[in-house]
């Protein structure tokens, strides 16, 4: 029993780290998390260990049947029922499964989860100011109360006058406004050397909490009334993104709703690595966790090498700027 328990424990111990799943539309993130937790617990059930035996003295009638020694004591090993799996219940009843940046029920996409000590890594990940990619499927022509196409319609409008050119102009304007916001939330004096150096490295940005910031905005598909936007952002909520679409519609002298919010990337995690609904088993999760760990390791070594090479180039003082730019590309 001890051996299997130890093995089981190691199996669970190996299960520390980050992975991502693809949250389907219309499912609450809590349900996704709970499903993963129960699957992990189910997958980690060890075969029932042999019960430990406990020596008990049992009264036994003597085999010879003599009246004189009617009862004799015999030490017999009896299975200790108090350790039976039916009595004690499963060994592990909870696994720490943490959820990264949330996705509301009406949106789908990559949802980062952490198991065990991975929760710490998850915290660290979100402290490093990661951006997330979204695909917003939108439609011109109406405005609703909750900015999605299922909500109560507030207003209907025409959209014939909208061209891709006009849309892109509005997007560019929005991007510019957000660029300014990035600088505003960075808590650094803009007229200082520090600000300059951060800006050169592209590290200027909000520390921790801030209002949602769109760092990139692009139209990937335009066929009125429907159009699709690709958004990179920080500290957003899905509702905020829908609101942005609504505002874009208003800016274009029309109205727009967001039909679908889909997250395609969260930090390092892309939808390519995400586990779909049928892959939420313990084995697949374990594999994904190991895969992530492996990629992280290789990335670290690559970064080290690139840093060394950049340090070598920095020795020639003449082109400091170019080396910085190279590093930017590397990261």
């Amino acid at each position, binding site marked *: 029993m001890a051996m299997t328990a130890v093995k089981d424990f190691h199996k669970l111990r190996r299960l520390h780290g980050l992975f991502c799943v*693809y949250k*389907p*539309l*219309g*499912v609450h993130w809590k349900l996704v998390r709970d499903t993963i937790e129960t699957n992990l617990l189910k997958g980690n059930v060890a075969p029932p260990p042999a019960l430990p035996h*406990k020596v008990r003295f049992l*009264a036994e009638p003597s085999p010879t049947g003599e009246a004189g*020694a*009617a*009862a*004799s*004591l015999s030490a017999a090993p009896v299975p*200790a*029922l*108090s350790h*039976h799996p*039916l*009595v*004690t*219940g499963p060994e592990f009843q909870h696994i720490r499964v943490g959820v990264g940046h949330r996705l509301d029920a009406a949106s*789908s996409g990559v949802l980062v989860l952490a198991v065990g000590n991975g929760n710490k890594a998850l915290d660290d990940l979100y402290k490093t100011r990661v951006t997330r990619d979204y695909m917003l499927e939108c439609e011109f022509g109406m405005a609703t109360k909750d900015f999605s196409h299922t909500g109560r319609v507030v207003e209907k409008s025409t959209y014939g006058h909208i061209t891709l050119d006009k849309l892109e102009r509005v997007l560019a304007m929005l991007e510019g406004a957000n660029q300014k916001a990035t600088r505003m939330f960075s808590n650094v004096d803009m007229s200082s050397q520090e600000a300059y150096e951060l800006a050169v490295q592209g590290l200027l940005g909000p520390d921790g909490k801030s209002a949602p910031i769109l760092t990139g905005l692009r139209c990937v598909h335009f066929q009125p009334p429907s159009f699709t936007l690709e958004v990179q952002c920080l500290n957003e909520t899905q509702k905020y993104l829908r609101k942005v679409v609504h505002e874009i519609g208003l800016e274009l002298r029309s109205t727009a709703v967001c039909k679908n919010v*889909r997250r395609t990337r969260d930090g390092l995690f892309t*939808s390519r690595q*995400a586990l*779909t*609904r*049928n*892959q939420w088993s313990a084995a697949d999760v374990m594999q994904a966790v190991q895969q992530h760990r492996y990629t992280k390791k290789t990335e670290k070594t690559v970064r080290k090498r690139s840093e060394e090479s950049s340090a070598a180039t920095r020795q020639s003082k003449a082109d400091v700027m170019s080396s910085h730019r190279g590093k930017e590309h590397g990261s």
Partner: protein
Amino acid sequence: MAMASACGQLCMRCRGSLSSKTAVWRCYSHVRHLIPRTRQLLKSFDGLFITKRLASTQTGLSWKQQMCCYSDLAEKHLTADAKDNKHTKELTKTSITQITNTLMPSTDVLSMTEHPAFLDLDDAAESSALEEICDEEAISISVPSSLPPTSTSLRDYVEKSETLSKLVELGVNLWKLEQRPNVGSMLLRLDFKTDVAPRLMFLKEIGVKDSCFGYIITHNPFVLCENIENLQDRVTYLKSRKFSSETVASMVSRAPYLLNFNVKRLDNRLGFYQQQLQLSASNTRNLVARLPKLLCVSLEPVKENLKVCEIELGFKQNEIQHIVVAVPKVLTANKRKLTQIFDFLHNTMKVPHYLIAKFPQVLNTKYLRVRERHLFLEYLQKAQYDPTLPNYISLDRMVSLPDEAFCTELALSTVEDFYLFQKTL
């Protein structure tokens, strides 16, 4: 002897009437009077004992002990007396409580003398700890069990209780049972031979398999408290309704609470399903045999589901009948899920009512599954659910096939593509 018992009675009286001060006073005087007399008696008794060689020295000793008690009592009473005298001027309640407090230890001693065993003077058969004993005696020594009087888990009792250990061997999930209120103590109170075994034998007689006992008792431990005659009545009722004995056995093992409901209730349920759905007797029997849970659950959600099917989903009466007979689970399904999946089938996939009634299994599948598959087929331009047109895809096959078969047979693509497609939804 008569003296001693008189003394004991007196002391008991004394203890009983401690509340009233005057009575206490009377007791004091009585005891004071008695002490010299008992001493005299003791002397005469001693002489008696010696001459007749009736009693050992131990009896004498116990006598002495008793006498000590009495004299102790008297002394204490006297001191209390003195104290009382001091406080007579005040005569407050506090003084009374003080007296009773001082009396308390002596009454404790008295309680020992009250005990019949203590009054029985031959109670001195204790052997020394070093004396050797034979095996027989060793067995007969009862070791006080280390059972905790209260516990949050049945784990502490499993080894000691025959019922619990037998239940574990049957495969009952005690861990789940102990989470239910009052079930743990109920199980502990049961006796295996008189309570549990006859009911298990009864279940075995009606044809329940041995492997099902664990499941039944885990889900319904109260079957062990039910009267056997009642159980027998219910089984005979079911058999009188022309359920075969195998069906009854399978129904009992799948719906553990079935035998806990009285005959009237069972009859009510059967009548309800027959009338509400206008089914024939054999169809009703079939329905209940397939989903015996229907006889146990509340009827309100079932009525609600029927109304939902009729009004909200717009099925005709005969269609509902057909759906329910084919998939009884529709009756106990979640109302919201039922409408959600119907909404998708009817409004998004444009499947008419008669086709859904023809393949009622689709109402029993997961919404996400239907949605994913339909969108995939639509993406491949293969979503064609009309049987009169070419390239028809039957609803039944669409929802019931596993992913691989669905992809290769219906979508004519690969599973990888299907999974990749799922990531674009």
